[in-house]
């Protein structure tokens, strides 16, 4: 008796093999779970990683290194992600130092796109700035560049020992690459004075806002300045620079109508008192909330 089934059994074998192979590769023995990159982190762990990058940046002032680390998270807009996290941190009442660090890094990144240039490294010792210290507007430390092949990730591109540490192994290869201009931050100990205080009517500004600008003596915006707003029975703190779109020295606070607020920079300086929400009126007679603008400046 002849078997007339033909070669279809071969196709069956291939299909069966593929199914078994995929089941083994995806289910039984998938690629090492431990070999993940920061981009795959859960959102809260990404926040923690970002906060760690910001804390390290505030400690060593090394922006290229911070950028290199942030690139691993693959955020669409790293500066915005930092600023949003800073605001979340403040809103949730978490460590204000962390919010400040995030804000400072967000401002420092403002206008600096993450690019291959982010791999340019400078040694922390040459750019170290203590927290809150006055920063030189431009810093041009000797440029150091990572070894090539430092961006291994989940794609299995395990970097070689000469460059595996994405942002950690640094081999000096050139000098003279200018680094991005850094935004100055505040210097503790110098009391601020009120340079300007005005009530403004602008329909484009939502809600009754206390808007604050912090500047240095030359009028340059200062990021990371802690502002204290207090009212009868309450107090809150916020920092400049957490809304980079509105300027490095900008911060605002939403007032509750009927409350009387006073405003000062943490650590001393002039106090602006008796700030209350007030309304404005358009030529057509419709009313909207105005806002207070207070400019604190170093003398």
């Amino acid at each position, binding site marked *: 008796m002849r078997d007339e089934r033909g070669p279809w059994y071969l196709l069956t074998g291939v299909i069966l093999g593929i199914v078994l192979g*995929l089941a083994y590769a995806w289910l039984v023995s998938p*690629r090492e*779970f431990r070999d993940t990159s920061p981009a795959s982190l859960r959102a809260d762990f990404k926040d923690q990683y970002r906060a760690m990058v910001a804390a390290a940046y505030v400690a060593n002032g090394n922006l290229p290194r911070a950028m290199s680390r942030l690139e691993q998270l693959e955020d669409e807009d790293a500066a915005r992600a930092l600023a949003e996290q800073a605001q979340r941190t403040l809103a949730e009442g978490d460590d204000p130092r962390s919010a400040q660090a995030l804000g400072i890094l967000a401002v420092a990144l403002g206008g600096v796109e993450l690019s291959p240039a982010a791999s340019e490294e400078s040694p922390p010792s040459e750019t170290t700035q203590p927290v809150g210290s006055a920063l030189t507007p431009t810093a041009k430390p000797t440029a150091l560049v990572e070894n090539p092949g430092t961006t291994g990730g*989940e794609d299995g591109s395990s970097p070689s020992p000469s460059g595996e540490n994405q942002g*950690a192994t640094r081999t000096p290869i050139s000098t003279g690459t200018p680094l991005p201009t850094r935004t100055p931050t505040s210097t503790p100990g110098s009391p601020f004075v009120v340079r300007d205080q005005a009530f403004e009517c602008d329909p484009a500004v939502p809600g009754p806002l206390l808007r604050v600008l912090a500047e240095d003596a030359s009028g340059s915006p200062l990021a990371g300045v802690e502002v204290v707003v207090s009212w009868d029975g309450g107090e809150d703190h916020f920092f400049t620079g957490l809304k980079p779109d509105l300027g490095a020295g900008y911060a605002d606070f939403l007032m509750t109508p009927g409350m009387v607020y006073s405003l000062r920079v943490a650590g001393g300086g002039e106090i602006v008192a008796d700030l209350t929400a007030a309304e404005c009126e358009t030529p057509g007679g419709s009313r909207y909330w105005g806002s207070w603008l207070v400019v604190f400046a170093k003398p």
Partner: protein
Amino acid sequence: MRRWIWFILTVGIGFGVGLLYGWVISPVKYVDTTLSNLRYDYQTDYVLMAAEAYAAEGDLDLAARRLAALGDTPPAEIVRQAMIYAAQLQYADSDQELLSQLATALQVWTPGSGGPAP
């Protein structure tokens, strides 16, 4: 009998193709992982960040809390491992020094004590 041999052979070929696709072409992509799942070089860099921050802040409790995110291993052991990897990965001497400072501080640290300043 010959038919069975060919069948088993084609199953083997298919299995190989499946492995190739599942491991190389389209491997499992993990999302929502934790810091303890990071590849060791990323973890080492995370420890270095903690060491950099500690060197400026001097808050050992905070450094220990940050390291605790990397798993249940004691912070001192995490830093010790990171120092080994940092040496293998040829970290800069200044970075290895920061790790060493943190490791030294953690050796005498007890939770809540604050620990010695860097």
